[in-house]
């Protein structure tokens, strides 16, 4: 697909990777830096209450606890950087687990085939989102609200309540490890490598440019339809991946399991410093955000307080993140950027 007829001017809108002005760089990264500081503080507190926090074992546990969210949030991050939002993530995760639970069977070849089909459905549903948003010029929020409902409903039609089974080889893969690191850590490493490559591709740059300033990206020759299809297609792909990983943890199809991830993907991204208005943030932000949410959960546990404090603490952290982000933007404007 042709993303940019003339590719050169797009680069002008990309955030200041090459900015010589240090303060501008710090201001731009302020929300992310604040998030990193929060994560370190939380880890510091946690390490006084729990033994062996700075160990591989802890890394394995926390990554396993965070990875489904992280995979789905990777897609959400791409959409947020584009300046959109994807609610259909919830429906796609549910549908993915349900198809896996009902179709995988015990034959590994069959399971692999259906895994590919699930990924294809994810991409297809995402591209459909992108087309509806571009061609009919509908709000991403409303389009993906509708597709969430359609995908989630389909999941309920296929499997009205939790059930089905996942082959033991599949769950084994998700729960084993290599070289002292759990599968989840290796997948996270692959995700980071993907991101380092992806963000520098023409597509990655075009998505960020479009999220930063849609009009100037368009005037620079970026096809908005192509960008939207790619953005939401990737989000669908990552939701499907999240579903395939989730079933290694649950060993079952669950027609409503995805709904819990929709707003948490947004929360993880925003806490880490991804802007809801597009153009700013990346996977590093989202990883930090997701780990903050997981460590809050661990802290609430070791403090022996009701787990209902977890969403309260997450909400306070989210507010702090949004505040940091808004202060950074204000000071950037005052600085005459």
């Amino acid at each position, binding site marked *: 697909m042709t993303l940019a007829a003339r590719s050169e001017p797009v680069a002008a809108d990309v955030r200041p990777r090459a900015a010589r002005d240090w303060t501008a760089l710090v201001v731009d990264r302020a929300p992310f830096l604040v998030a990193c500081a929060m994560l370190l503080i939380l880890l510091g507190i946690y390490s006084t209450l729990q033994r062996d926090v700075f160990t591989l074992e802890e890394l394995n546990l926390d990554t396993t*606890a965070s990875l489904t969210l992280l995979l789905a949030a990777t897609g959400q991050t791409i959409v947020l950087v584009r300046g959109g939002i994807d609610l259909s993530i919830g429906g796609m995760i549910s549908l993915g687990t349900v198809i896996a639970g009902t179709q995988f069977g015990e034959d590994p070849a069959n399971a692999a085939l259906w895994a590919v089909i699930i990924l294809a459905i994810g991409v297809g549903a995402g591209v459909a989102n992108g087309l509806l948003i571009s061609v009919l010029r509908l709000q991403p929020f409303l389009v993906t609200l509708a597709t969430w409902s359609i995908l989630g409903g389909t999941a309920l039609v296929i499997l009205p309540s939790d059930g089905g089974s996942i082959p033991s080889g599949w769950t084994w893969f998700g729960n084993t490890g290599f070289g002292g690191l759990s599968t989840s850590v290796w997948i996270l490493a692959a995700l980071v490598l993907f991101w380092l490559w992806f963000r520098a591709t023409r597509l990655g740059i075009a998505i960020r440019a479009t999220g930063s300033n849609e009009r100037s990206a368009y005037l620079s020759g970026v096809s908005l339809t192509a960008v939207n299809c790619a953005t939401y297609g990737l989000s669908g792909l990552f939701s499907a991946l999240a579903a395939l990983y989730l079933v290694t943890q*649950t060993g079952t199809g669950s027609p409503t399991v995805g709904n819990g991830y929709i707003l948490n993907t947004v929360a993880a991204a925003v806490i880490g410093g991804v802007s809801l208005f597009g153009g700013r943030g990346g996977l590093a932000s989202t990883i930090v955000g997701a780990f903050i949410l997981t460590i809050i959960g661990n802290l609430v546990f070791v403090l*022996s307080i009701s787990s209902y404090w977890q969403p309260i603490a997450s909400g306070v952290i989210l507010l702090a993140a949004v505040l940091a982000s808004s202060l950074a933007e204000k000071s950037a404007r005052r600085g005459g950027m």
Partner: protein
Amino acid sequence: MMNPGIRPGALARSVCAAVSAVALGAALAAGIAAGPAAAAEGKTYKIYLSNNFVGNDWRQQMIRIAELAAKKAPLAGRVDLKVENVETTVQAQINSLNNIIRAKPDAILIDAGSDTALNPTIEKACAAGIVVVSFDQVVTAPCAYALESDWDRIPALMAEWMAKELGGKGKVFIDRGLAGAPISARLQEGYEKVLKNHPGIEVIGYYNGEYALGPEQAGVASLLAAHPEVDGILTQGYGSGAIKALQDAGRKVVPVTAFSYNVTGVTCAETEGAKCILGSNPGYLGAEAIKLAVDVLDGKKPADRHVLVYADFLATDEFKSELYPDAKVQKIALGTNAWKDRPPGLTLPISPDWMEVTAEEAAGN
């Protein structure tokens, strides 16, 4: 909601679990649960209770009675209980269970959000030598005990009672519960299986009571408009909504089967001519789970991983079941087993036969 421990289907699942001050207080109180009566005999076991939902009366009563059981005779001093209430998502309960497993308790009690999705995590707990007891919403993992009410006995005995009340002849409505919920289909089939043995009884209408008063009353009211000649109503919910619908329609009150809420017990006792039987998924199920865990840890293992709890029925009159001769049916007596001044959502009976619970303790006020 009838059988309120069970959150049937997606509808209930989507209900955002409100943060309840009562539950917060109760969970905090868990920290000081180990009572002064130190264990003279047996060891004190560290037990976690993982509960995925606190948004209804039943779960709150369940948590209250579980905490009470850890403090009162006969288990006082035997249990160091910690309650972990988590958000309704499967991931939240998995993450919480993983934290619990790290704390190396002797046993974990689980009221689960899914009968299958926790299995890999539960197997991890079993492999770590932890006794796992799932209760109320039980799980399929073979290494975990599954403690629940006898869902075959409850509808069968109540249908038997209805047939006897009607003298084997009459027209009835049946509540289908909540569309898509497995427990609803099970209760409906349980009713119909017994009624089939009484050819004189005809089912003339179905409605979806959805375990709430409003839909029950509306469902019965609209059926009454079409079939004014009804002789009995088999509900899966409160039953008091069905009685209200009969009264509003100016009809005489017919025999009703329902689940044992305080409001139902009070309504049945106070309404002129009302005949009721109430089945129970008791609020002391969490306490039963603690007792089972302690028994297993003491070396007294049950023969099967499935353990059924048989709570007493309540009825407006004495009733002796022929299908289940062992079943106990308490006669409703205001101030003894149902209370006008207690919350309507309180599940009866409040005490298991091995522990005394007062109405005040059960209601938490």
